């Protein structure tokens, strides 16, 4: 139905989408800001269109420009990737109005699931598990009382928020009022909306999500679950599938619940239903993301499906063509997110030029990266540089391959969290499959860098070899004096 697709994104996801589109024989256009002009996706695309904006991020969020870019390039469909405008219902509508296919869900699904309070109540009404909660909108006057009645521990969340921003954990009810006020202020500041809801907080929670895919003909399947519990300040670092926490029955229950929720919403396209899973086996609906997720490759590695390909097929109007029974998990996959941050200094973002980039390779290793040598990494965008996804027959083998791949990944010019991730992969809690979302904070001391004296010597020796000024000075000593050494009369 459409022959040319515009990719409205950048970095690794733009390149990854591009590769699938090319494989499907579709023409490709990448819309980009000038700062990404030499990025791999732009260079490989059939065409590119430059976007302008006050900031580079603003360029990627400019709906009007993107619609115009489609028109000018003749793209009949647009893939939004993740982040940016991928969950912006107004954008989806603007494209539809312009006659351009938005490769994603229907705008009303985006709206429904984008409002966390609405989504929650939609899910609860249809009998799916949600955490005991108090929603402010239900009755603002009694909100605080109802919240208090839930009992500690509690989690205060902004209605308009997402991605973990603006959330506050309350363990002592004495400070509940103060925390609610603070959360409200932050909600207003970050999301322009001070409405809140409060949920019972699950201790040692694990984050389990389910990939779903629905076509335009009423068929919807799930692609099993992913566990994303290894998080730092609500930012995912390691994701894997299958989840080591679930029994077969639990897996079945969660995945069916997710599929049920998506079906109830008449969902079309790719989506992910996220759950909080507690130590006692209970799970509660958290939110639904109406887009492709960053960690989708682990699902692809174990099921053999190309999710972007399925997205495009669905957008083309094709039926899925397969049933739930056709989606089988083989082996285990782990994804590690390589971030430009300094784990030794409170994970502050690092910047610099990529002087050397040698991604790992080998059996079961997949690297999704959108960077190239010579590229400058600035604080303008998200600090994710690449995803390293490893597959193994067993979880243990997947971990071994992931550790090896990380050790072999060479990125010089700025600090990354590669070594930090390796320490996490080696940590007993992770190896035992028992990591929860609080693990990284709890084990912070054990995860600290520790270089041996031999390590330091090697690094110093290497620095000496690359220190031209030092070598020149050392060689400037005349031969006889160097041979005499530190002689004194």
């Amino acid at each position, binding site marked *: 139905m459409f022959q040319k697709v515009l990719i409205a994104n950048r970095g690794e996801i733009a390149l990854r989408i591009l590769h699938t589109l090319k494989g499907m024989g579709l023409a490709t256009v990448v819309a980009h800001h000038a700062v990404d002009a030499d990025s791999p996706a732009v260079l490989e695309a059939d065409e590119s269109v430059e976007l302008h904006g006050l900031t580079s991020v603003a360029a990627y969020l400019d709906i009007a420009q993107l619609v115009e870019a489609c028109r000018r390039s003749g793209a009949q469909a647009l893939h939004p990737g993740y982040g940016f405008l991928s969950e912006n219902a107004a954008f989806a509508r603007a494209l539809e109005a312009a006659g351009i296919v938005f490769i994603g869900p229907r705008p009303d699904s985006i709206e429904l699931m984008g409002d966390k309070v609405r989504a929650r109540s939609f899910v609860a009404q249809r009998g799916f598990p949600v955490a005991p909660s108090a929603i402010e909108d239900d009755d603002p006057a009694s909100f605080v009382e109802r919240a208090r009645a839930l009992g500690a521990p509690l989690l205060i969340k902004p209605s308009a928020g997402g991605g973990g921003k603006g959330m506050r954990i309350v363990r002592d009810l004495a400070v509940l009022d103060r925390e609610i006020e603070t959360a409200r202020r932050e909600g207003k500041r970050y999301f322009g909306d001070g409405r809140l809801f409060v949920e019972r907080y699950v201790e040692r929670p694990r984050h389990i999500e389910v990939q779903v895919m629905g076509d335009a003909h009423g068929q919807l399947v799930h692609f099993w679950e992913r566990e994303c519990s290894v998080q730092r300040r609500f930012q995912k670092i390691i994701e894997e599938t299958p989840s080591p926490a679930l029994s077969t029955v639990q897996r079945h229950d969660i995945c069916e619940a997710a599929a049920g929720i998506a079906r109830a919403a008449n969902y079309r396209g790719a989506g992910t239903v996220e759950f909080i899973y507690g130590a006692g086996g209970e799970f509660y609906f958290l939110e639904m993301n109406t887009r492709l997720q960053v960690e989708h490759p682990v699902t692809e590695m174990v099921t053999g499906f190309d999710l972007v390909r399925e997205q495009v097929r669905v957008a083309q109007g094709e039926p899925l063509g397969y049933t739930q029974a056709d989606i089988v998990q083989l082996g285990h996959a782990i994804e590690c997110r390589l971030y430009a941050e300094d784990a030794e200094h409170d994970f502050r973002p690092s910047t610099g030029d990529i002087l050397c980039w040698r991604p790992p390779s080998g059996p079961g290793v997949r690297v999704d990266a959108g960077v190239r040598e010579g590229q400058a990494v600035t604080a303008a965008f998200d600090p994710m540089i690449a995803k390293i996804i490893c597959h193994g027959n067993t979880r243990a083998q997947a971990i071994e391959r992931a550790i090896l791949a990380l050790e072999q990944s060479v990125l010089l010019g700025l600090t990354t969290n590669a070594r930090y991730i390796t320490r996490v992969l080696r940590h007993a809690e992770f190896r035992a499959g028992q990591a929860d979302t609080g693990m990284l904070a709890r084990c912070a001391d054990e995860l600290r860098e520790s270089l041996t004296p031999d390590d330091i010597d090697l690094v110093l020796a290497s620095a000496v070899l690359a220190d031209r000024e030092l070598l020149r000075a050392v*060689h400037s000593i005349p031969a*006889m*004096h160097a041979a005499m050494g530190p*002689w004194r*009369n």
Partner: protein
Amino acid sequence: MKRIDSRIDTAFEAFRRNHQAMSAIVANFRERMEITRHQRPPHEIKRVRAQGKLLVRERLDLLLDPGTPFLEFSALAACEDYNGEVPGANVVTGLGVVSGREVLIHADDSSVKGGVWYTLTPRKLARLLDIALENQLPVLHLCDSGGAFLEELSGVYIEGGRVFRNQCLLSKAGVPQVAMVFGNCTAGGAYIPALCDYSIIVRGTGGVFLGGPPLVKAATGEEHTADEIGGCDLHTQVSGTVDYPADNEAHAIAICREIVAQFKPATKSYLPERDAEPPYYDPDEMLGIVSPDHRVQFDQRELIARIVDGSRFHEYQPAYGTTLICGYAYIWGYRVGILANNGVLFSDSSKKAAHFISLCNQNRTPLVFLQNTTGYMIGRNYEMEGITKDGAKMLMAQAGSEVPKFTVITSAAFGAGYYGMCGRAWDPRMIWAWPNVHMGVMGPDQAANTLADVKIAQLRRKGHTPDEAEMAQLRQRVYEKAERESNAYFATSRLWDDGLLAPTDTRNALGMALSAAAHAPIADPHYGIFRF
């Protein structure tokens, strides 16, 4: 080039006795050096630390290139003067490598009496600067002195002028100097950084002024701190007297190293011609070859064999004038012409020396003099042969020589033989003595006997005839004084040499000296009149 055939038997009784005695002399020498260099009263060290300063050798450690040699000059200057209270005359001077460049260093030692100048201090500095002029070597000054010692003002006054004059001539010759001001540069001392091409000052402790606070107050009634009169900010921001401010001593030294790294690369008038090769024979054996008694003869070829590369030596005129050995060898790859005494100088040996010196000047070979001489031969027959004329020819050859000359006194240096073999007055680029050495116009017993005879004659004239015991006592007293005034420490204390060397250090000292001396061009030789 043939290797010297050593005839030494290390099992031989005389060898073992010599070795034992000489080792003791060398051990004693090294101990005196250690004390002079490092032993300081604890309260002085505390004072230096309290001022936030480093000790002089700590500064040198930071300044010199790590893993390089340092040849210190006259470490034992003033060791027999001023009651031995002024180690090294309160300054350290020497030859080292900084930022890959061979340089001379003058470093004040303020850990003794605030580093004040005694008369021997500027004399030691002037000598360093003479070496700088003759060899065209850059000089780095580490300044930190209390100024002139008030009880030695007149001596310092006259000697000091030569220091500044030499600095100006160095600059005139295009040889760079850098000063690091760590402490005070007062009165005359203020000219040292002012006459340097580059100067650095440490904020807070460095001060440069013609008159310090007490003098200024006495002269004009003004009351200022040292920093206010001539501190870092005043001189680096307002007056322009000093070029670089430094936050601390390590910073100042780092700046100096950076400056030296910018110097024009050295152009050398000669280079090593071969790869260096250590001596074939063990240099330690030199301690068994030389006797502590300077009257005992030994063959200096055995010493040469333990100093030069591969112990190889090309002897010149091996059959003629055999009391003077002449020949070519290599030291650390540098080709040298060696003259070494094996006894008294005769007419033939004197003529041989003059000829060899002119040969080496013609082929631009630096000369090394290994002195062990009791002088020129005396006697009627020798006079008839013209010994005086021939000695004069040797001196004339010395004076006309333009190649770098280096002198090492290995045992004895008496009479005019000391002159002929390039003594102090004959401009060796550097001159050293071994700690067992005795030198003077005549040997101590000769001196003692002559002097005793004169004294006895005097007493007799006055009507007193001394008995055996009295005469023995008189001779003993005179001998002891003559002995003390002819030993190596006496000489080195007065800066008659550029330092004492342990015999086994001779090779490295000569290597460094040869490399350093090549910084100056070698002019064509030009001689006065030889009385033929």
